[in-house]
């Protein structure tokens, strides 16, 4: 029987149906001896899939075997359970399997864990209660059991938050494995448990992703892992690859990144082709984080591009796709098209052609930066030509999106009408040329695109006879290979060509009126009417133009009346699709919230949401008479390219302001003399002996241009890179203004209490530092300086004390200000320029330099406000080191009695500075960034660094989003750009220019917030403040 079963397996393997033996396999598992049983189980696992009905018959056998005293039988049963088991029957065996977790034999424990893993995969709900047992398995004394539990954790940790506390355990395990603590038989070619290491590295990278504190735990072990993998064997490289990936996934640490980058070098330069492949793959992953890494290996990349191996080439293109920017896009696209022409694998074509189209559409309209050599005309031709290639190569394999995007690009255009027209003109010209040649081999979707463009824009081209256009299009109609859908496109194009050549049209209509296709016949009829009825005809040009140039009311405000009527009649308010989706999801789960929390059905909120997704509805037949009517008849809603601006959509065609880069002179590692030399050559071109080499170098320079500065591109046009530690000028504007107001509101009655706190604070200060202590640097300030400072200040305060006393507004603005480029304090204009915006316009006195020492300088200035005198004190850092800690103490002398003031503010200042130091930037303050929604959209797309966080939503008011955003706005000096439905966009920027964009969305009771900024630490900083502000609220 066993023999027969093996043959049945053979039959199935060769592709013959052996379903009649299935039942015998189950029988064999039930009745046979040990070896027969095993083969029976094996056959079952090969033959039957999860949903097979016969599988139910197996449950009893499994149950029996699980309870058997024979270890081998238990083992087999567990194996088959872990391979294939009916979902509904899990509860029946679950207790038995759980029991096995504490079995004395390791193999049984191991298999039980794997069986539970299977259960987790097919029915996660049923094993929720035994998560604690997984934890026990993880700490099992047998490494095999521990290793198998990792599979479960790898799944669980995909939502990492609740498993962060296990990081330490995983790190320890990896350390032990690395340290050779496992038995020798776990070694593979004297590498300890390599696959286990890989598994652990994956888990660690999932845990450490975007989490600094967790990442810090694993730096050491990753470092060790990188170090250990020195041995020259494939498997160590496999570990190394995983390690590099982990290093680049978790929160970055410069030292490790550098080491990992060096490892990649080993891969890429390896003569072994498999390693080279893996190196390219690693590089592809890594350049997403740091595009400059590709520069070090440019010559290798170029070689790989010409490699005879298809796989290597393919991977290289993938890499190039990732490093594309506005400057090298032409070259990269050309390379990709070359590859596509020689490629005949359908999957690859579909995959890659989409990318080419994406690239071509992403970079079309940024002409000003787009290489000075490329004139707009030339650029247009490149774009159209590329798209022609895309359409003719990709043909009908293309996703429907690609031609649609292209047409939308043509129709919507950019800001300048002239440029758009040029592009369109070029498209028309190029299509006419194409159509004059052989057309029978062209893919349908290309023909459709061409006919649409000719219909819309042929009139732009003065020199071309309309008859010629009509003739060419009609010719297409006659071809057999043209599908009926394309015919419809062509006919609608013909309808659009204005001032018809009636005779031609009539001929055409005549010949089509006997067509088999009813749609075509109908269109031909319409065409005839249209060309005969001159009155109808006159409407047309207007209509056509109006579709694309007039402002479409994207908010559909003309429907508001209708909507409010419907609402009044009890209709449900409109919800955008994603919200509906979410609600559907919520409905599926148990609803634990009381019903009263549901959305307020107010007209205002619904009209806002109404405005959100006009795209679906804005076919707007009323607006675009003939054209819309025709396209509707054509049954292709894809044609309707409404002029709606897509604020949030993916629109790479928006102008991207990138600083034009000088040719990049990258620092190559010493390992790479070739590329270094090459880089030098690029700067000062010298005659090169081998032309082939020169070609390659040219290619390299065109491919990698612009990469070096990619990361330091600043969007607001300020691209000067300040020394990294000194990036921002401090501006605790927030604290100063808030302290000002709080001070103002505090009356004299509270002064006594303040005095007590003051004296308390005073007492806590060390005696030997009576006034201003500068404990910033490694050196301690001389006491004389400190004394001088204090004296100086005292006298100064004396001078102005009277005024401030008389005015009763004892306001002092304390403002630590680090001046990056060492302004001498005497340059008053520079200092006053640093005043907060709301103080800038106030009349002010000259800036008086109070005192200075080699490290710090103090100066002050008075500002005259209507109700108060403001005293601004500038504390400037004269050195290039970072100020770690500044203690400022102000004393105010008045009528022989010393009164300390402003400690209250100082406290705030200190707190503020501590906070900044925590963020490793010295004093960052942001300001509102006033932009329009549209500019915001552009900025948003040009940034990629994304930080997401859920924040508390203030729910005490009617419109929680607005309330929350306003609270944030007040607390943090943000600019609320727009609120659309349940989403809001907010912007702010650093004083030095780096913007930070916030995109918020109400998500249940929380506020999901996405932050983007070119400055890596800024989003975290802002998030921290937002959290604090909301917590205080």
């Amino acid at each position, binding site marked *: 029987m066993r023999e027969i079963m093996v043959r049945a397996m053979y039959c199935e393997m060769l*592709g013959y149906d052996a379903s009649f033996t299935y039942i015998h396999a189950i029988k064999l598992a039930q009745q046979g001896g040990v*070896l027969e049983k095993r083969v029976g189980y094996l056959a079952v696992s090969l033959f039957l899939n999860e949903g097979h009905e016969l599988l139910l018959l197996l449950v009893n056998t499994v149950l029996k075997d699980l309870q058997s005293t024979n270890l081998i039988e238990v083992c087999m049963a567990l194996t088959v359970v872990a391979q294939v088991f009916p979902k509904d029957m899990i509860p029946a065996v679950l207790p038995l399997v759980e029991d096995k977790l504490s079995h004395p034999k390791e193999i049984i424990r191991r298999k039980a864990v794997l069986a539970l893993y299977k259960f987790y995969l097919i029915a996660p709900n049923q094993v929720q209660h035994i998560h604690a047992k997984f934890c026990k398995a993880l700490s099992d004394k047998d490494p095999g059991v521990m290793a198998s539990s990792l599979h479960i954790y790898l799944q669980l940790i995909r939502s990492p938050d609740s498993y962060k506390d296990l990081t330490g355990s995983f790190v320890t395990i990896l350390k032990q494995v690395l340290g050779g603590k496992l038995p020798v038989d776990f070694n593979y070619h004297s590498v300890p448990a390599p696959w286990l290491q890989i598994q652990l590295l994956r888990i660690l990278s999932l845990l450490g992703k975007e989490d600094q504190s967790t990442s810090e735990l694993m730096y050491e072990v990753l470092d060790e892992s990188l170090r250990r993998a020195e041995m020259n064997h494939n*498997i160590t490289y496999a570990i190394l690859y995983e390690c590099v990936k982990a290093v680049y996934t978790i929160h970055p640490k410069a030292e490790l990144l550098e080491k990992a980058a060096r490892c990649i070098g080993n891969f890429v330069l390896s003569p072994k082709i498999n390693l080279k492949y893996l190196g390219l793959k690693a590089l592809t992953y890594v350049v997403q984080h740091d595009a400059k890494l590709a520069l070090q290996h440019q010559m290798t990349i170029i070689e790989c591009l010409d490699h005879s191996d298809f796989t290597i080439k*393919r991977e290289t293109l993938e890499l190039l796709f990732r490093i594309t920017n506005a400057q090298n896009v032409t070259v990269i696209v050309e390379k990709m098209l070359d590859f596509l022409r020689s490629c005949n694998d359908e999957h690859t074509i579909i995959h890659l052609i989409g990318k080419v189209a994406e690239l071509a559409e992403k970079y079309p309209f940024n002409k000003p930066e787009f290489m000075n050599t490329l004139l707009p005309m030339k650029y247009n031709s490149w774009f159209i030509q590329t798209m022609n290639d895309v359409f003719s190569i990709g043909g009908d394999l293309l996703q429907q999106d690609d031609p649609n995007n292209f047409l939308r690009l043509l129709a919507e255009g950019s800001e300048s009408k002239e440029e758009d027209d040029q592009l369109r003109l070029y498209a028309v010209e190029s299509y006419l040329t194409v159509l004059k040649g052989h057309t029978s081999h062209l893919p349908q979707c290309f023909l459709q695109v061409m006919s649409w463009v000719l219909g819309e824009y042929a009139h732009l081209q003065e020199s071309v006879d309309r008859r010629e256009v009509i003739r060419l299009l009609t010719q297409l109609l006659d071809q057999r290979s043209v599908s009926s859908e394309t015919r419809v496109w062509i006919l609608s194009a013909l309808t659009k060509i204005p001032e018809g050549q009636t005779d031609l049209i009539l001929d055409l209509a005549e010949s089509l009126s006997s067509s088999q296709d009813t749609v075509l016949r109908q269109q031909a009829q319409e065409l005839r009417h249209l060309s005969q009825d001159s009155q109808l005809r006159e409407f047309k040009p207007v209509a056509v133009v109006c579709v694309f140039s007039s402002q479409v009311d994207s908010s559909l405000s003309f429907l508001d009346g209708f909507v409010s009527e419907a609402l009044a009649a009890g209709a449900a308010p409109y919800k955008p699709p994603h919200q509906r989706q979410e609600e559907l999801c919520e409905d599926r789960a148990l609803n634990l919230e009381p019903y009263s929390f549901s959305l307020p059905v107010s007209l205002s909120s619904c009209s806002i949401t109404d405005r959100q997704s006009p795209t679906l509805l804005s076919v707007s037949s009323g607006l675009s008479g003939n054209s819309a009517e025709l396209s509707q008849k054509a049954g292709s809603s894809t044609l309707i390219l409404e002029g709606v601006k897509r604020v949030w959509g993916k629109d790479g065609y928006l102008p991207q302001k990138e600083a034009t880069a000088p040719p990049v002179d990258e620092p190559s590692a010493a390992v790479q003399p070739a590329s270094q030399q090459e880089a030098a050559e690029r700067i000062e071109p010298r005659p090169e002996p081998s032309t082939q080499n020169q070609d390659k170098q040219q290619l390299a320079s065109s491919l990698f241009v612009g990469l070096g500065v990619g990361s330091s591109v600043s969007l607001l046009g300020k691209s000067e890179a300040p020394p990294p530690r000194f990036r921002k000028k401090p501006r605790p504007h927030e604290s100063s203004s808030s302290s000002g107001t709080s001070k103002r509101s505090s009356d004299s009655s509270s002064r006594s209490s303040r005095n007590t706190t003051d004296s308390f604070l005073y007492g806590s200060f060390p005696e030997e530092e009576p006034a201003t202590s500068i404990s910033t640097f490694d050196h301690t300030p001389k006491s004389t300086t400190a004394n001088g400072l204090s004296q100086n200040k005292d006298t100064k305060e004396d001078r102005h004390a009277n005024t401030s006393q008389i005015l009763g507004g004892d306001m002092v603005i304390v403002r630590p200000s680090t001046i990056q480029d060492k302004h001498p304090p005497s340059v008053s204009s520079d200092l006053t320029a640093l005043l907060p915006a709301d103080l800038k316009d106030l009349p002010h006195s000259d800036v008086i330099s109070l005192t200075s020492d080699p490290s710090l300088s103090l100066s002050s200035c008075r500002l005259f406000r209507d109700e108060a005198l403001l005293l601004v004190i500038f504390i400037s850092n004269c050195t290039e080191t970072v100020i770690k800690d500044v203690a400022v103490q102000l004393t105010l002398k008045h009528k022989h009695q010393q009164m300390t003031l402003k400690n209250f503010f100082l406290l705030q200042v200190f707190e503020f500075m501590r906070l900044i130091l925590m963020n490793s930037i010295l004093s960052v303050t942001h300001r509102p960034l006033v932009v329009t929604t549209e500019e915001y959209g552009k900025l948003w797309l040009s940034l990629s660094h994304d930080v997401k966080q859920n924040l508390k939503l203030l729910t005490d008011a009617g419109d929680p989003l607005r309330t929350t955003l306003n609270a944030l706005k007040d607390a943090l000096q943000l600019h609320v750009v727009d609120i659309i439905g349940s989403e809001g966009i907010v912007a702010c920027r650093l004083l030095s220019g780096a913007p930070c964009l916030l995109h918020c969305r109400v998500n249940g009771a929380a506020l999901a917030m996405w932050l983007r900024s070119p400055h890596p630490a800024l989003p975290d900083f802002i998030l921290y403040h937002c959290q604090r502000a909301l917590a205080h609220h």
Partner: protein
Amino acid sequence: MIKFLLMVNKQGQTRLSRYYEQVELGKRASLEADVVRGCLARRKEECSFVEFKDYKLVYRQYAALFIVVGITENENELSIYELVHNFVEVLDKYFSRVSELDIMFNLDKVHIILDEMILNGHIVETNKTRILAPLLALDKMAES
């Protein structure tokens, strides 16, 4: 994740196939044929990884026998490449100098070994003694 593992000889005859994801019986044959064609067409100096539809193939040749593994994009190709070698080493240990014939006539045992190593498309055991332990125990019981 591992999608399937095939053992095919140079003539394109399948010697062993194991799918970790449901593939219809009718489609298996054509898939195997495509896979074999893809791998056989490659030269020695080209790399052992091929893109195939939406997954990757990792193959390794032992005399006239190819072992081909289909994996997803997120899997580490080189580790699979070495896993194949580990598998062959285990077979070698069990059959002492394994040959194509061993695999043909002991299909069930090869499957049992494979089941110990790969489960549900994941690598679950790579320790040679532990992989062979259940099978050796079975053999001993069958003898007695």
